[in-house]
């Protein structure tokens, strides 16, 4: 099947542009745009891990290694498109328009941070695996119904493909030609379970055959390739030609979460050895160098700006008002029924039931 679903690549690991067709898109401007976003994601991600180690936030889900897939896909979206991320896709959310301090708040167990953006249509991270795929289908069908040209994108991992909701969400989208992109980041692991134990199929892209829709396999460490694949899928969706399943092959450099110890189930050393070779950010640096676009000053400047932005977001998070227990009662329904009102009083006057 790998021959039927070849790995799409525009730039190889050495930083050579391997696609004549799309050479013209790989401009300095685009390179800098993608580079900036990936660097921003990585800076945020590393800070997240640091804050967790320092006990300043709770369990954190790192995505280092997957920046290319998350930036390439997120930047392909239009203003009013819908994004349905998982717990690992806060990078994509950030690239699309999530507010940094809200993301940090979320990792601090603050519901105030659950909605990543008040302007972009980004859902809170979907925690029950694959349950959000049908949501993306439904949001897309609603846009179709309303006659807009908006599309939806659902993010999910290789493990998610084993859940019924993966199948049901895509099947329904395929029947109604819903304008939705099913964007899979295949990082080869579901926590500790390697993909060979997750599925018997050689690729994830081939699962598109079940639904009579296009399946695309792309090098997820190649931000340009991902961007192109998602852009094409979104165009197809807006044209009314229905959903696409995209498999972005990526490597998760770190642990599943800060509560996970990957050395229990895989050889982390090997990953450390190859990581510079495969790093999506370094790949772009190589392109810059190979094409005389290297601009050290700009990179340093950019780093500084991002650092400052992240520092400010951390401050915002830590200066945020104390959590309000009343929040758990006030938003279950538009108007709290007597049960919840009574219970709220119980808690607030800390009395017995």
């Amino acid at each position, binding site marked *: 099947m790998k021959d039927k679903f070849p790995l799409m690549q525009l730039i190889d690991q050495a930083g050579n542009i391997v696609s004549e067709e799309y050479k013209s898109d790989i401009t300095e401007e685009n390179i800098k745009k993608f580079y900036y976003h990936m660097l921003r994601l990585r800076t945020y991600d590393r800070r997240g891990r640091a804050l967790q180690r320092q006990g300043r936030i709770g369990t954190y889900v790192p995505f280092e290694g997957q920046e290319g897939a998350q930036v390439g896909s997120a930047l392909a979206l239009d203003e009013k498109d819908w994004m349905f991320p998982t717990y690992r896709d806060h990078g994509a959310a950030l690239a699309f328009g999530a507010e940094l301090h809200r993301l940090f708040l979320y990792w601090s167990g603050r519901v105030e941070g659950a909605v990543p953006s008040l302007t972009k249509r980004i859902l*809170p991270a979907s925690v029950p695996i694959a349950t959000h795929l049908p949501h993306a289908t439904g949001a897309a069908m609603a846009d179709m119904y309303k006659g807009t040209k908006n599309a939806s994108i659902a993010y999910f991992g290789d493990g998610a493909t084993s859940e019924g909701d993966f199948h049901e969400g895509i099947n329904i989208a395929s029947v109604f030609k819903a304008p939705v992109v099913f964007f899979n980041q295949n990082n080869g692991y579901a926590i500790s379970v390697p993909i060979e134990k997750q599925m018997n199929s050689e690729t994830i892209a081939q699962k598109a055959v079940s639904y009579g829709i296009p399946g695309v396999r792309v090098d997820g460490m190649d931000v340009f390739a991902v961007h192109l694949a998602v852009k094409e899928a979104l165009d197809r969706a807006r044209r009314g030609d229905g959903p696409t399943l995209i498999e972005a092959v990526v490597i998760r450099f770190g642990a599943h979460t800060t509560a996970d110890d990957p050395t229990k189930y895989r050889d982390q050393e090997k990953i450390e050895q190859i990581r510079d070779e495969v790093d999506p950010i370094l790949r772009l640096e190589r392109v810059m160098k190979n094409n005389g676009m290297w601009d050290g000053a700009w990179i340093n400047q950019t780093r500084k700006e991002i650092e400052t932005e992240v520092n400010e977001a951390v401050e915002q998070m830590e200066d945020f008002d104390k959590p309000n227990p009343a929040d758990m009662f006030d938003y279950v329904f538009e108007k709290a029924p007597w049960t919840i009102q009574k219970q709220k009083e119980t808690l607030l006057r800390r009395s017995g039931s």
Partner: protein
Amino acid sequence: MVMTDNRITVQKKTTKQNKYNVIQAIKDGLKTMLAEDENVLLLGEDIGVNGGVFRATEGLQKEFGEKRVIDTPLSEAGFVGTAVGMALNGLRPVVEIQFLGFIYPAYEQIATHVSRMRSRTLGFYSLPMVIRAPYGAGVGAPEIHSDSAEALFTHMPGIKVVCPSNAYDAKGLLIASIEDPDPVLFLEPMRLYRGTRKEVPSEKYTVEIGKGTYVKEGKDVSVFAWGAMVPVAEKAAQALEAEGISSEVIDLRTLYPLDKDIIAESVQKTGRAVIVHEAHETGGVGSEITSIINDTSFLYLKSPIKRVTGFDVPVPLFSIEHDYVPTPERVKAAIKNSVEF
């Protein structure tokens, strides 16, 4: 006064009335809302061309088109999840689960998304959607088709549970559910679908969610029921009048949130309570009603609360399903036990 519940009041100011049974009233409610709000659409299995296995949507696809009345694939988790996405994006989907026993595949969608979207986003997103499902035994349906699973949803914060027992309430509660800003599970007593017809106003009206109603007033004992058990309770109550026992019969109509006030008001008057439901006894809504009585009316109770319920067994195949479902005889016996305690 208790008898001026919204049923009566509305009927006063109504002009045209139709004599409808429950299924006709539900169709009328769906039609009313499809006509009134273009964001309302229906999804489910066999609801389009076929008009639903119970004909609840008969003719609606022809009238409102395939974009409004959608035949879905056989995929409950999928189309409930699809409805979540539609509701997020401004529509008001009304989903039909062909039989309540087939809602289980969608349980994760309902437990983790339908019921939680508003609270997990502090109200930034909300899901005005309705899940309709015929429920209950007594029509000779196959295995799994006869479950009464309401208690699996009244213990799930974020979704309301409604269950009418007659045509008038069916239309009014359905419209109220569709207009509700939050998700509602709308349970339809299969057994009453084609039962007694009632005057149903042709216009739009609502019956308030969260309010029970007095079906019969009495002074010796309060009998609580909903859906298909209301006529059963009524029958038992009428029969006992002859024996000089005056039972008050209350149709709770909404199972979450329960109408605490009507429960307390009646029990504080009669001092006795019998609860009738079709679902399994253990963990049924009856035990929550018992708790509400304990919390509100402890000092008024003259005898232990009685529950007449389905048993802690799967609903049996139809040759003995009538032995599973509470009967007027069992309710009468319970009322007597309660009164003679």
